[in-house]
């Protein structure tokens, strides 16, 4: 093989490898892939969504299903990719979002989350935010429970937001995923090269066998 024939493909490979990398660093955002995240707040469910490019799906259809697949509710996201709905029942819920052009995301609300909220909606006959001036004698366990629940929920809110952020980061591809994918392709090329080498060797030995 002429040395030029080796050098040229090498230069080309380098060029083709470097080009996406340059474009990549120039690109400000990632894109595609729709992530949906939902959590229970009081008797309401908050739904947040995002394309992995950072854009919020506006006016995307959100459907709330039970585990059997029956549709309970349907709504659309606002300009921030959010939608809030009243918890329809205490069972686990599937929240499915369709943002058009084949984009689809899902989130499962676990039984534990919806059950806790369901219990609270069960005690709504009692005034939900108990007045602070309530005489000590009139503080019933119901009041106390409702009050505690409210306090705990407020304390948990930052945690929920943090979880949502973590979830988003988990879904956005990073360097690890990119290198992983490139590694697999390199591996496949290696397999191809191995097959090719075996063929060439087989052809050579066959040629030698015929020669005498």
């Amino acid at each position: 093989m002429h040395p030029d024939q080796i050098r040229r493909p090498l230069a080309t490979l380098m060029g083709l490898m470097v080009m996406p990398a340059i474009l990549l660093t120039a690109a400000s955002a990632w894109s595609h892939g729709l992530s949906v995240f939902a959590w229970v707040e009081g008797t309401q469910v908050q739904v947040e969504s995002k394309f992995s490019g950072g854009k919020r799906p506006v006016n995307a259809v959100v459907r709330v299903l039970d585990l059997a697949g029956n549709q309970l509710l349907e709504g659309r996201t606002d300009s921030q990719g959010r939608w809030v709905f009243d918890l329809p029942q205490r069972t686990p819920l599937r929240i499915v979002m369709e943002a058009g052009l084949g984009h689809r995301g899902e989130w499962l609300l676990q039984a534990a989350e919806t059950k806790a909220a369901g219990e609270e909606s069960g005690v709504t006959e009692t005034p939900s935010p108990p007045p602070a001036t309530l005489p000590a004698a009139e503080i019933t366990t119901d009041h106390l429970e409702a009050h505690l629940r409210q306090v705990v929920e407020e304390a948990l809110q930052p945690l929920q937001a943090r979880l949502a952020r973590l979830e988003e980061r988990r879904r956005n591809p990073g360097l690890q995923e990119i290198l992983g994918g490139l590694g697999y392709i390199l591996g496949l090329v290696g397999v191809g090269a191995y097959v090719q080498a075996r063929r060439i060797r087989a052809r050579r030995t066959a040629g030698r066998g015929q020669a005498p």
Partner: protein
Amino acid sequence: MHISEGVLSAPVLISGAALAAAGTAIGLKRLDYDRIAQVGVLSSAFFVASLIHVNVGPASVHLILNGIVGLLLGWSAVPAILVALTLQAIFFQYGGITVLGINTLIMALPALACHYLFRGLLWRRPSVAATASFACGFLAVFLSALLLGSALYFTEKEFMAVAALAVGANLPVMVVEGVITIFCIAFLKKVDPGLLPGKRPAENRQAPPAPDREEVADAS
């Protein structure tokens, strides 16, 4: 441009998978083993390109690069795209495993079309070659958007609206890919013309000795 899991009906998924499998078989059969590295590199480029975001308007669109992949690889583009899409589904959660077949078709069929349409034009006059390169990058994305519309037709029952939306959303991508294709082809012509399909005109074939003489001059 990736269709997510659970959007399409079973018949569409199955026929997509069958056609993609057939295309991959043909692609592998026609794969020249000396070109495996090239197929790998273009598959890598396709894999990474989907992370490059074209930020115009409210839509979420990204580079596809199926035009140049098809132009350079011909039928081998089908396995290259299939591999890249599989890895995108696993690593990036783009698309999904059950929709792999249909997504491969959406991107590989335009790649093939571009290969046959434009491979003969690359060695014409520079202006013609540049126009062909641009058209290759542009048309591949355009055709993909149309295919996306027809795949979604079976569930959304509305071809024109969906296709118009897909074409509109990807219009900036088409232009960007057209420009990228011009640069890639011009770059490859200089660096490694052997990678490009089509026959080089005779005067170009005699050209290579010239750089060698320059190298000798540099060395002395």
